[in-house]
């Protein structure tokens, strides 16, 4: 393992029709670290994840994941990346198992590994019963779990998760947290964006808070609270995004 961060951005920015969604973002996420992105709606979290996933081209700055960048090492880098967007890109008329087979083939996963991981993840995420049914009738939560399972079947070195717990039931959220921590222990670097402060506080090693495309605060949950006089993460968030009216009473 080298000291080179798994994810490193310098002055990263993305402009849409004259408006900067992300500005001057400097980020360094260590290998095996679980980094949480917090921010209001439209703060630039999804744009950052899309830039890291290689779906968007930066308007400014540079980024490197595992020492590779999308411009020069596009496919080699993507082989190491797993991206779970907010809306899972499922095919309505494929079954869950068929969808996993499609994703696995895109990432060149051998059949034996695919089937072995698929069975384990389906059991873990409680998808086994629905695995051979068309995705068409699946709930949002099941869709998210299926896409997460499909991405994990590819054994990514870096996992990018956009609002992964939205729409999941409490049991699934718990299993998701355990699964993500397990992935990190196994050496996977995880960067997740979320609105759920509790989740961020419980699972993330470090947290970055984005406001209007700019990283306004960064540190471990304990460091962030200490910097703001030991207040809750909610107060830290409100202060860092400039949208709070001070600490909540009680």
């Amino acid at each position: 393992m080298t000291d080179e961060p798994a994810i490193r951005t310098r002055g990263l920015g993305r402009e849409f029709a004259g408006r900067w969604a992300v500005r001057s973002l400097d980020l360094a996420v260590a290998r095996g670290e679980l980094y949480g992105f917090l921010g209001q709606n439209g703060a630039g979290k999804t744009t950052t994840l899309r830039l890291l996933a290689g779906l968007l081209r930066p308007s400014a700055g540079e980024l490197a994941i595992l020492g590779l960048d999308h411009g020069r090492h596009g496919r080699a880098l993507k082989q190491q990346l797993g991206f779970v967007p907010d809306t899972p890109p499922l095919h309505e008329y494929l079954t869950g198992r068929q969808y996993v087979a499609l994703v696995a083939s895109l990432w060149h996963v051998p059949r034996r590994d695919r089937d072995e991981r698929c069975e384990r993840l389906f059991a873990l995420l409680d998808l086994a019963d629905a695995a051979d049914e068309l995705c068409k009738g699946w709930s949002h939560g099941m869709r998210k779990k299926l896409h997460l399972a499909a991405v994990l079947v590819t054994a990514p070195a870096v996992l990018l998760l956009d609002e992964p717990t939205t729409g999941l039931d409490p049991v699934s959220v718990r299993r998701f947290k355990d699964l993500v921590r397990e992935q990190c222990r196994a050496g996977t670097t995880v960067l997740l964006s979320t609105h759920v402060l509790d989740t961020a506080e419980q699972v993330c090693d470090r947290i970055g808070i984005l406001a209007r495309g700019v990283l306004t605060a960064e540190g471990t949950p304990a460091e962030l609270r200490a910097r703001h006089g030991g207040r809750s993460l909610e107060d830290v968030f409100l202060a860092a995004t400039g949208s709070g009216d001070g600490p909540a009473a009680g």
Partner: protein
Amino acid sequence: MGLLRADLQALANLPATAAGRRQLLGTLFGLGMLGALWWSVVATMHQDPHLVAMLHRSTHGLSLPTLLGTALLPCPIAATWLGLALAQRQLFEAPELLLWRSAPIAGWRAPLQVLLRASFLSLLWASALAAPWCMTLLAEAGAGPLAYCLLPVALVAGTVPLLAMLLAVQIVLVRFFAGRVLRLVLAATAALASVGFSTWLLLGLFGSAEQRLAAPATTGAPHLPWTIEAMATLLATAARGQLEPDALRQVLGWLGLSLALFWFAARLHPRAVERHLAAESPLRRRRRGGWPTSLAAVVRRKELAQVLQQPGALLGFVTFAVLVFALADRRVLVGPLLADRRLPAELAQVAAMATLWFLAVMLVLYAHMGRLALWDGPQWSLYQSAPALPRTILRGKLEATAVLLAWPLLLVAAGGAHWYGASPRAVLTFVGIAVGGTLTALGVLAVVGTSPRLVQPTDGAIAQGGRGFIAALVLVLGFQLALAPALFAWFELERHLRTTRLDAATVRAFAPWVVGGALLHGLVVAALGTALGARNFRRLLAPR
């Protein structure tokens, strides 16, 4: 009025974005082109004094109402198509239904909005297809302003009542009989309506212009629906500066009655939607594992699975088979070829099958265009974030399309053998030529279906760039252009036949060369098309 205002606002907002402008321009340009093509066909017909005189005689001087009735026929045809194919989905599966159903508005308001949307679209189509012919007829009859003022009334009355009735019937059916069988029936009807409309349009635009005028001229007044007849009478009398009260009463009465019936049915809509959503999905396949790991093979299998596991798509293929057999049975477009005494029987049969194959492929080619990129719109981010080679994904998709394009080939071969009595040798020759043609179609499809001008990548997804009409026109023109050498060869043969008699032995001797030429041509176009398509596909998958 809130829903109507929202729809109008959405329409008004279209020019504000690049995608909206493309959609708007594409639709207007497409419909304008269609109207111009339709008008040019009609103008050609009316310049034939022999046909016009014959029509005048056969209708006992009533040629104007007869022709106006024929001209207004696109109104109910467009309404039937949109009512069964588009409005049906809107009625029960529109994404906005969730909002409409949860809003504190009357239960009939949502279906009324669907009717308004469908009416708007139907009127656009009806205006493009019927108005040019009606205007030409009225201008030739020296009609005054009254007739022109009544033309919009005729278009509305020809379109909206039928649409309202179709929607009302569907609501009532779903309300009381929702379930697996009805979903299948509705999906089949929608597929039939779509294919039927495309066929009618293709035959209208590319069929012989004289044939269409000759039909009423030789058989007398064609049998028109009574509503169309009333509107034709109304317009014909208005062309003489008179208003026919009976006809006007009939037209307005029909409009009022259909809207009243729709209103009664619309009140059942909330319960109908509930029952539709509760009804089981019609087809479900249970399969475990067994999928390959090679990317092209998985993509090919995925495309085929989406057809086999999607009831609507599967029914579309069955409906298409019925349609092709019907075309073969009725010898549409190929009657003169088969009756041509100058051609040896085998040659006539091969030419007829090739013509029918061309028509069949034209009907499905546009649908396959979406398969290459557009239908993966919401899933595009998956391909973008994957480390796979774009050309491998495209190869899988083209392989699946090739398998699906074998369907028209098989149908025509079977139809040709059955209805034209083609010998096994003639069928084999046709299959060889059609395989070359299929390769040509794939080559054209690979380029057009991935063109970044026609398919636009958006934020993590993909959307239609140049709207359907332009894409369809480009595809049809591209396909025709790619087949130009074959057409040129056929015209040369026809020219040769004017002076020389061709015997069966010569046809047999040349058949392998023709098949070889077709295959070679197909391979060249497919190779070029795939190379260009792969470049396009890479550009579509590149980060923005």
